[in-house]
């Protein structure tokens, strides 16, 4: 019997098709990585001229100063000191709020995995994680900015803390769950109370997970602009008072972007922000890797 072989069913055709697909996958994957380098290159190329010591020691210039500098064709004076200090202040308060609460909730979830309450809290934490950052900003505006009758660093910190919480809860829960049960049992058998076992055995053993989780959470909220826009607002001077409006690096970038006179400063400040964020990110991942191997 003679069977007509169709082209599409020959082994050669199928293998070629498979190979072409493989190359397509590799090419598309390679293309996906390109934007990271394009963005880095763009920031370095346009930002290095303004990336100097002044960036760290002087506050942002006014639109007028920048215009004068532009007319005389000299580099724009000033830096983003008010943004750097603001970011540090806002982040510090956010960390103080989010990390203890997040760790406690994480411990609760890991210790009571089957309780209905734990399941409920876990889904709510997922829900919180999904809320768009601008909506969190609006909520903090409603609860903090309106009652305090003014924008403040504290409001910004609370917004960032709410964004960090779900990530810290998740990483605490997962890293405690990964610990062997025998560890906890050994602690209890030695006569340690429940409190001692959690504080002296479980949390220190899970430290690497907690630490990297918190670092990743920090790096994620560090570049946030939208929630700060409606909570911390921004300020033109260095401010260490948490109840006053405060600037942040990301807020300054937004200001520079909106003011044609200051547009040149946008690149150096973005470069600094990106270096901060990616640096923390890479650092967290590298120690995660190191500690996992041991």
């Amino acid at each position, binding site marked *: 019997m003679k069977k007509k072989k169709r082209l599409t069913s020959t082994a050669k055709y199928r293998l070629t098709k498979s190979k072409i697909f493989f190359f397509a996958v*590799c090419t598309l994957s390679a293309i*996906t990585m390109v934007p990271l380098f394009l963005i880095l290159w763009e920031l370095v190329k346009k930002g290095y001229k303004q990336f100097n010591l002044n960036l760290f020691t002087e506050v942002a210039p006014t639109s007028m100063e920048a215009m004068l500098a532009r007319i005389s064709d000299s580099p724009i004076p000033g830096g983003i000191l008010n943004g750097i200090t603001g970011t540090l202040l806002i982040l510090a308060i956010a960390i103080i709020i989010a990390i203890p609460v997040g760790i406690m909730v994480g411990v609760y979830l890991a210790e009571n995995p089957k309780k209905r*309450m734990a399941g409920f809290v876990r889904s709510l934490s997922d829900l919180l994680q*999904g*809320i768009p950052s601008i909506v969190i900003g609006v909520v903090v505006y*409603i609860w903090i900015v309106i009652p305090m009758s003014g924008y403040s660093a504290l409001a910004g910190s609370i917004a960032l803390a709410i964004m960090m919480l779900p990530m810290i809860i998740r990483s605490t829960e997962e890293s405690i769950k990964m610990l062997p049960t025998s560890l906890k049992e050994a602690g209890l058998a030695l006569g340690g109370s429940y409190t001692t076992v959690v504080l002296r055995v479980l949390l220190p053993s899970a430290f690497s997970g907690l630490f990297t989780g918190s670092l990743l959470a920090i790096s994620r909220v560090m570049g946030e602009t939208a929630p700060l826009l409606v909570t911390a607002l921004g300020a033109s001077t260095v401010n260490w008072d948490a109840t006053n409006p405060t600037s942040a690096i990301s807020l300054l*970038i*937004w200001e520079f972007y909106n003011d044609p006179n200051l547009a040149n400063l946008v690149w150096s400040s973005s470069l600094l922000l990106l270096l901060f964020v990616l640096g923390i990110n890479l650092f967290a991942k590298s120690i995660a890797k190191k500690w996992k191997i041991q």
Partner: protein
Amino acid sequence: MKDKIFKAILFIAACLIILLTAGVIYGLVSKSLGAFSEFGLGFITSTEWDSRNDVYGALPFIAGTMMTSILALLFCIPFSLSVALFNGEYFRNKKVSTIVSSIVDLLAGIPSIVYGLWGFYTLRPILIDMGVSDQGFGILLSSIVLAIMIIPYASSLSAEFIAMVPNDLKEGAYSLGATNLEVITSINLPVAGSGIFASYVLAFGRALGETMAVTMLIGNTNNIPTSISDTGNSMASIIANQFGEASGVKLSSLMAIGLLLFLITACINFVAKYIMKMVNK
């Protein structure tokens, strides 16, 4: 006694999360009542956004958000699926895949505002040169940038699901003479299908809420976009743009948009989490 106090503290911390969520919902609902009592449910379907007459409607922004996010999702699929197959199937547990996945993950670390700048100064001129529109702003520009932003979320999760496909299934197919591609299309993708779907739903949820990049690129006009080169405004971007100067009914309307955005993203995330729960069972 000490233990009881400690346990109570943990319990209270967990209650804080419930309180926080309740506070988010209560705050948004109570502040948007003003807009809803003024315009009724017609607020959602009205296309008007008129500050002078104090008449507001959310439809143009819902449309803008949906158009940008859906387009972004479409743009992101070929790339993130490739990355997922690269890391989860072709080069699973190889060194090159850890490099690729960490570089793609770094994309998720770039702040939204930096994406916005890059889109504004680098991509926009390209779109203008291509003759998409005069100014370059619009749905297309924002969806391209959004697509890049959500690729890492979609690809890392779906790579995990693709890597979870049992080896014996794949080996069975190989032993029957299937090629690499045939194994992927007839084993990997069907088996990991719902997981991959869930990761795209999650990525879609991310795209819905992105604020700064979209605000900088979408063009900020309060109309329903009619084509992909048209300008518009998304729910997040109208809030970011007009929140500072708003008061009274307008402020309440912006908060109502915030509430709608919250509800939409919550539903999307719930669907994704539900699918993933079913997959893991």
